[in-house]
């Protein structure tokens, strides 16, 4: 049975039988991103209608594999470059793609979950946070300046509202480079706390301004094409 299973899995483009961690399995319902559920249900319905399974219409690219690659970076902490900043390492393991797969899209999705600390803050003018994203180009040795090992990718202001606010960025070229062993040093996301923003009145800010920062969740949507599984065969 084992050898038959292995043959069948390889026909499905899987080098082995996946063995997800028990926690992932237990939380199955909750952990599947709603966007993927929607795409799954749409493709199930569409298959009856004969849509093209080797194109991902939602992103308008060629592909038959859509992965929500989880962020394996550490939790957010004080920033090394400014006092009232928080920074979070982001790391996406791109070695999960098989060498045969052609990467057609890698889109970073960062979601900010903000909750006002006090009702009065809701009446305050609209809250925003300054976001900077850096690419890390080599690991930082002790005593060296982290800034020297990072390159800016993005810097913008995000307007916050109660509930999730998301930021998307195409990182396809960068993610392609991460597929080479030893070339993936991840990203750094830096959030500038509101206290540094003069438009906020000081008496509304908590003692530690970083407490006012939103919770950050990140994932990388990677769309790839396995050419062996997308052959156009002549039909009778």
């Amino acid at each position, binding site marked *: 049975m084992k050898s038959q299973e292995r043959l069948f899995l390889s026909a499905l483009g899987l080098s082995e039988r996946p063995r997800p961690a028990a926690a992932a399995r237990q939380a199955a319902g909750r952990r599947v*991103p709603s966007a993927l*559920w929607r795409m799954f249900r749409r493709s199930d319905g569409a298959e009856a209608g*004969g849509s093209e399974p080797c194109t991902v219409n939602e992103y308008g690219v060629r592909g038959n594999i859509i992965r929500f690659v989880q962020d394996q970076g550490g939790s957010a902490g004080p920033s090394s470059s400014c006092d009232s900043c928080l920074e979070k390492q982001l790391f996406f393991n791109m070695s999960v793609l098989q060498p045969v797969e052609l990467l057609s899209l890698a889109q970073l999705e960062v979601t900010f979950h903000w909750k006002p600390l006090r009702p009065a803050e809701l009446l305050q003018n609209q809250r925003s946070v300054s976001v900077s994203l850096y690419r890390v180009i080599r690991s930082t040795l002790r005593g060296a300046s982290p800034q020297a090992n990072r390159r800016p990718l993005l810097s913008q202001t995000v307007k916050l509202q109660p509930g999730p606010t998301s930021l998307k960025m195409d990182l396809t070229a960068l993610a392609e480079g991460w597929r080479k062993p030893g070339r993936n040093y991840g990203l750094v996301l830096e959030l500038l706390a509101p206290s540094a923003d003069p438009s906020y009145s000081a008496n509304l800010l908590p003692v530690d301004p970083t407490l006012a920062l939103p919770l950050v969740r990140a994932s990388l949507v990677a769309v790839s094409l396995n050419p062996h599984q997308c052959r156009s065969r002549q039909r009778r």
Partner: protein
Amino acid sequence: STFHAPLTPSSVCRARRLYVDFRDVGWHDWIIAPQGYMANYCHGECPFPLSESLNGTNHAILQTLVHSLDPVGTPQPCCVPIRLSPVSMLYYDNNDNVVLRHYQDMVVDECGC
């Protein structure tokens, strides 16, 4: 003068129902959805004369003719899928990433000789 047993509808080439249940093969711990699907398969005879409904190629029509003249030397044409549908699978990979994957030609919709 060879005797042909009368063909029952169930013995001619057509799609047969086959439901693959991922739990049966122990894959339910990494496949999120579907829990299984109707894969079906083709089975049955391609007899002479090949009727229109058996979706035969010209070659298959020729082969049934030769088979009727020389059943030992030339087999009947094969009963194979001629129309297939894709299936999508949602599963966890080894890094607990959620993956949606589309596979072509996983469901037999129609068979022919």
